[in-house]
């Protein structure tokens, strides 16, 4: 038992992302064995569609978490709700206005991101508290703005959100492109390297000439913009926006980042792991559903799984003191 755990630990240390893919595959196999192979294709396409939403949001959250200890964005759910409502209102069910709706959603994201960082910087408060306070305001804005708002998405936009290309969900392909870009930006650009450097040691990064404030600002804007984009897509997918459609994404975004093998302490991130972790999270729910367990057991299992994974992967190793 102990040796298994330690083996798992070394494995998790070498390839943190492999763990999530391995888990996702194991769970998928268990489900298929249980159903005798019935509905395998269906499960994969659904998992890809719903997993995609997790990936988009978690990509932003990963940028923020990478920027160092204590950095986390709690305003994601309210941003999703507000951006969803705004984009649906601007699009107004009209195909010609889709682009404007998307731009408006991203505008909401940029505004929220700037507000978040302004609070962090001007009040010099921890990001958890800043994004928490901001989320209260954004949430109220979306309640007041979205009251009684029930606008269906434009036909073409709904088609994009629910459609398929060569049997694959269009959304999944779109998100794959997004993660490739996200990965290149994080690992190959000055900005991305700066985010990682700040996450490893903010003071050292600052002394080495990294413009810490500007990089962190950009990071919060990127995170909020991706959440906003997800809000618009989610509204298109589910036939209109609703106030609580972002709720599950706060916990999910953090969980996906952690299960995907990024360090919660920052400075180390993993884009590929996001996909593995998203599929893992969604397939876990599907498997428990197939086994016929109730909502209560399903949530307990999901929660214990998150705790178990972080326990095996372990926390940040204490640095030299």
């Amino acid at each position: 038992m102990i040796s298994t755990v330690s083996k798992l630990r070394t494995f998790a240390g070498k390839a943190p992302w492999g763990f999530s893919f391995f888990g996702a595959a194991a769970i998928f196999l268990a489900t298929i064995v249980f159903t005798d192979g019935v509905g395998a294709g269906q499960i994969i396409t659904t998992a890809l569609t719903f997993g995609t939403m997790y990936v988009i949001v978690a990509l932003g959250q990963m940028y923020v978490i990478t920027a160092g200890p204590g950095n986390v964005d709690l305003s994601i759910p309210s941003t999703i709700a507000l951006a969803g409502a705004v984009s649906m209102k601007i699009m107004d069910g009209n195909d010609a206005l889709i682009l404007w709706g998307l731009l408006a959603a991203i505008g909401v994201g940029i505004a929220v991101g700037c507000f978040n960082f302004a609070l962090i910087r001007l009040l010099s408060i921890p990001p958890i508290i800043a994004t928490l306070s901001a989320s209260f305001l954004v949430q109220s804005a979306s309640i007041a703005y979205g009251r009684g708002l029930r606008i269906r998405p434009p036909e073409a936009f709904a088609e994009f959100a629910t459609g398929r290309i060569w049997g694959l969900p269009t959304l999944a392909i779109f998100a794959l492109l997004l993660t490739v870009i996200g990965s290149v930006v994080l690992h190959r650009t000055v900005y991305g390297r700066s985010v990682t450097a700040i996450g490893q040691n903010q003071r050292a990064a600052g002394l080495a000439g990294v413009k810490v404030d500007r990089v962190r600002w950009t990071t919060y804007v990127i995170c909020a913009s991706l959440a906003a984009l997800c809000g618009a897509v989610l509204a298109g997918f589910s036939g209109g926006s609703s106030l609580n459609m972002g709720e599950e994404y706060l916990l999910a975004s953090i969980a996906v980042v952690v299960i995907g093998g990024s360090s919660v302490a920052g400075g180390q991130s993993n884009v590929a792991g996001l996909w593995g972790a998203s599929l893992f999270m969604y397939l876990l729910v599907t498997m428990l559903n197939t086994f016929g367990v109730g909502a209560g057991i399903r949530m307990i299992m999901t929660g214990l799984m998150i705790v178990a994974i972080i326990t095996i992967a372990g926390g940040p190793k204490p640095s030299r003191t």
Partner: protein
Amino acid sequence: MMPNLMTPRALRSLLPAISFTVLLIGIFYVQPRAMSFMGLNLMLNLALPIALATIAQMFIITMNDIDLSLGGFVSFTACIGATLLGESPVLGVLALLACIGVYALLGALIHVRNLPSIVVTLGMSFVWLGAAILVLPTPGGQAPDWLRAIVSVKTPFVPFVIVASAIIAVGVHLFLMRSSTGVILRGAGGNPQAVARAGWSLFRAKVTLYALAGFFGVLSGLTLVGLTTSADANIALRYTLLSIAGVILGGGEFVGGRVSPIGAVLGALTLTLASSLLSFLRISGDWQIGAQGAILILVLALRTLVNRMERRK
């Protein structure tokens, strides 16, 4: 000895009281009829469970950790209070004690494996919510009579909720700020190395703080279900964010075990009052959460100002 009220330190600790008073004066100005036993009772009716949850969160924040599962935990204990506790009191009490035990275990796990509390409690929030759904699949249940009797005690002159809040605030203050155990607990958050080198066990400090948080979480769930008489699995989910906001409003900081029990209770009361002021001003309920956020930002801005003042000296 009269402390100088104009020092940044004194100002900072007075800030929660000041913001509470300003809000109360605002309410009395807009609606003078609220200035009565009945008015205060109505406005602060649901403040007690929030205050207790805020104290629970404060113990976690003392250790520089954060508990994202508190809302789910309070919901779960409320569900037990509405079902098991009435049906078979012994089993109910055992279940609640086990809950506190789980919190202590979480503290141990987080300490031993050096885990980020945010992720562990995030996972636990799913567990508590799932457990609450198992205990109480549909809203309902019935709080035991004795529980309802306790929370609806009528005290003379001052509403019970204010008396109880004051007792909690002062009691926890004496324990955490004045007792030698309290000093070690705060020290474990403020300067763990110093505490460890002086020979105290960080492990025990962390387990104690988590167990205390579990204890006050249970109290919060019980008072909540006593007030509402029935429960549902989602009854207290918003307490997670509300309790963090309350601690911060009350002068808590995420560094160095800087917390204040009296401030935390005042912070919880302030957040509860904010919605009353809004309804007296005839502002739509849509902005209720937003107003709580705005108050939070305002108080934080004032604190930053005080801190800047301190640095300039």
